[in-house]
């Protein structure tokens, strides 16, 4: 057992090393350099062309004139000291940029996870309770249909119908700036108002999974003997659901919560770009555009570590909750 957990740690270490190396190499493989600015796309933000001298100076300043293996060792060394580097474009430590953006992404993803889990489970339970009846059947069809639509497509249609068409929600961003809020509550409402559509898009596309899980485990539990006994004892419906059934359905649902964090990241990147939400997804797209290596690497590293962490937690929680695994 101990050997196994040691293996597990070595595995994680190797994985992280591979990712870091990939992370270092990939952005550098993209042709083009960050200081060559020859064009623009709008008359409003026309380019300032840097002279050769300036470019050389910046190359040296950021150590990009060094041979690649040297850059690699410097990068690894700095990473070990917890330094993610300095943005070439934003002229700010990468960690600061990421810390300013991360909360928005985390806020969005966590809200979506919590909401989709809660709503999914509840609907799943309702479905299981009415198993094989029309309620279950129509719910099933409905949920399966929506769960298969990718979140950014849901986001797009929400954006156009509810924000652009009906004008019910803001088109972009996460907060209204420089607004004079009457109270803390109106500020909170402002944040929520901006987050509703993106979070809804993510939630809807992840509802199906939890729904199915909730429905299946509930059904299994409902067929168990002890519940039949509880039933026979004349316990009330809600008591049966909440005391017994839900408790047993919890395990797969919790495991799924952690695991779905990873897949939500991909969806979140796109959804953020649909709503111009100021999280890591929009930052990533922008950094790829301007070839800001340190920022790309930073985002990638943070995202990967978070996903790894979620996986690790899933393992842990699973062991904690399921006596069969820990024994």
């Amino acid at each position, binding site marked *: 057992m101990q050997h196994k957990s040691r293996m597990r740690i070595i595995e994680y270490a190797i994985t992280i090393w591979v990712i870091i190396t990939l992370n270092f190499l990939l952005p550098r493989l993209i*042709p083009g350099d960050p200081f*060559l600015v020859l064009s623009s796309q709008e008359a409003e933000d026309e380019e300032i062309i840097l*002279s050769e001298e300036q470019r050389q100076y910046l190359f040296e300043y950021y150590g990009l004139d060094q041979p690649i293996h040297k850059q690699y060792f410097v990068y690894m060394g700095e990473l070990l000291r917890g330094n993610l580097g300095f943005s070439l474009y934003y*002229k700010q430590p990468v960690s600061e940029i990421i810390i300013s953006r991360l909360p928005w992404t985390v806020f969005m993803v966590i809200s979506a996870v919590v909401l989709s889990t809660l709503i999914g489970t509840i609907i799943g339970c309702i479905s299981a309770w009415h198993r094989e009846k029309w309620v279950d059947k129509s719910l099933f069809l409905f949920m399966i249909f929506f769960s298969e639509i990718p979140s950014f497509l849901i986001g797009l249609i929400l954006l156009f119908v509810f924000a652009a068409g009906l004008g019910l929600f803001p088109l972009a961003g996460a907060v209204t700036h420089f607004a004079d809020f009457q109270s803390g509550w109106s500020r909170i409402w402002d944040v929520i108002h901006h987050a509703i559509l993106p979070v809804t898009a993510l939630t809807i596309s992840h509802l199906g999974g939890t729904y199915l899980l909730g429905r299946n485990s509930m059904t299994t539990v409902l067929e168990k003997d002890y519940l039949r006994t509880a039933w026979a004892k004349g316990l009330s419906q809600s008591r049966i659901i909440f005391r017994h059934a839900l408790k047993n359905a919890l395990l797969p649902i919790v495991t799924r919560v952690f695991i779905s964090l990873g897949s939500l990241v991909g969806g979140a990147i796109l959804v953020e770009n649909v709503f111009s939400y100021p999280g890591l997804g929009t930052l990533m797209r922008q950094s790829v555009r301007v070839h800001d290596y340190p920022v790309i690497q930073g985002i990638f590293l943070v995202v990967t570590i978070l996903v790894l962490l979620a996986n690790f937690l899933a393992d842990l929680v699973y062991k904690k909750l399921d006596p069969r695994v820990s024994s």
Partner: protein
Amino acid sequence: MIRLAGGDWGYPTPYGLYPRGPGSRKMNLIFDSLVKTDSSGKIAPKLASEWESSEDGLTYTFKLNPKAKWHDGKPFTAEDVVFTYNYMKQYIPVSGGCPDSIKQVEKVDDQTVKIKIDEANVDFLSNSSSWIIIPKHIWESVTDPNNFTSAEAAVGTGPYKLVDYSKEHGTYHFVANPDFWGSKPRVKEIKFVPAGETILAFEQNEIDRISVTPDILSRYENNPEYKILSYETSWAYRLYFNMKARPELAEKSFRQAIAYAIDRQELVDKIERGAAVPGSPGVLHPNNEFYNSKAAQYTHNTNKAKELMSNLGYKDADADGILKNNKGERLSFRLLCDDGSARLAEVIKQHLAQAGIEVVINSVDMKTRDARFKDGDFELCINGSGNGEDLSELTTIKSEGKATSTTAQAIGYQNTEVDELYIAQQKEKDPKKRKEIMFKLQQIVADDVPKLTLYYKNSLNVHRPSVYDGWSLDTYHSDSRSNFVDD
């Protein structure tokens, strides 16, 4: 108070901003240069109240404005100018750097500096109008200017003080400087607020001026609440022919055929929905003071293009719509563009196909495109730029160390007459004679078409006159200093 659409363009110092116009315009609210170029192209005083050049044009003496003071109350002196020059030689700024041609900057007395340049150039003063002076007492102890973003870094002599900046949200807050040396700023406060959707923000009174597209102009027309100002800009998309990669393109009439084949008016109508001016082959915008309307125009004519091609020996023997050379090879070009101009490339492809030339679009991201453009790794390339009017990019002369000065070299274009004329106009002090040289230059360039200007974008701006009606008619940039202050 005026609110405008924000967005993060970096810390508005010569070292902190991003290499884009909005960043440098914000910097110009805070900092001053010695002189400026006014809307008619004349040199006007800024930090220097008067100046004179020596007979040989190699030495300039500037008298500094005694009223100028730094935002923190310290006086502005010749020391600052000398310091800025030396500092910027050591640490090269992103924007606002001193002209390369300067050899030496010397303090004569507290209010006078003498600047020596290496070669006479009539454009020296206009080149130095972008050179920003920074305070010695603040920057002398700074050894990592790229990282210097404390509040002092934004101490300048200009009309506005920066009171707040947020990188995360892309917000800037400027307040008028009561001790400004020039005339009183007309606007007390300028706020740049992030507005993901500027139109919505404008309609909800969150910002006071926006740039719009023709399709939504009708929302503001015939409404006294709004005022629309339309500008023609020199920002343009241009098509470059790489004669090194494709020897066929070295043939002048081949390039002319392409110019005939592309319907520039349709590009304007489709891509910009009419809000642009079709490009003139002589490179300069029709409203440029040096514009020569007599230069070749190549009005759209597919038959003319076909005729030129057939004179060159290209035939469509098997009638599949694509011309072949005498070896029977299909006439096909790769057109390099970035994702922003892919749509434009598509229309060009259609136009050239009508003339029997096949185009394969090769769209990459902007940075990659820029790198390949510089290295000459393309056959045809579309470049969108606000800097393309400078004809120096068609010469083999290295000017002001700009990366585009390699363009002529990259595309394999060389015309000694163009080089000579360009140098001659640079040295010509008589404006009339200079204009004549420029006319000649454009004629040659239009005849040679080493690059084809596709169109110049127009800018449509809407504002609320009730909030502020002092917007400049000379610049379409809402964040430009001339909207808020007469120096």
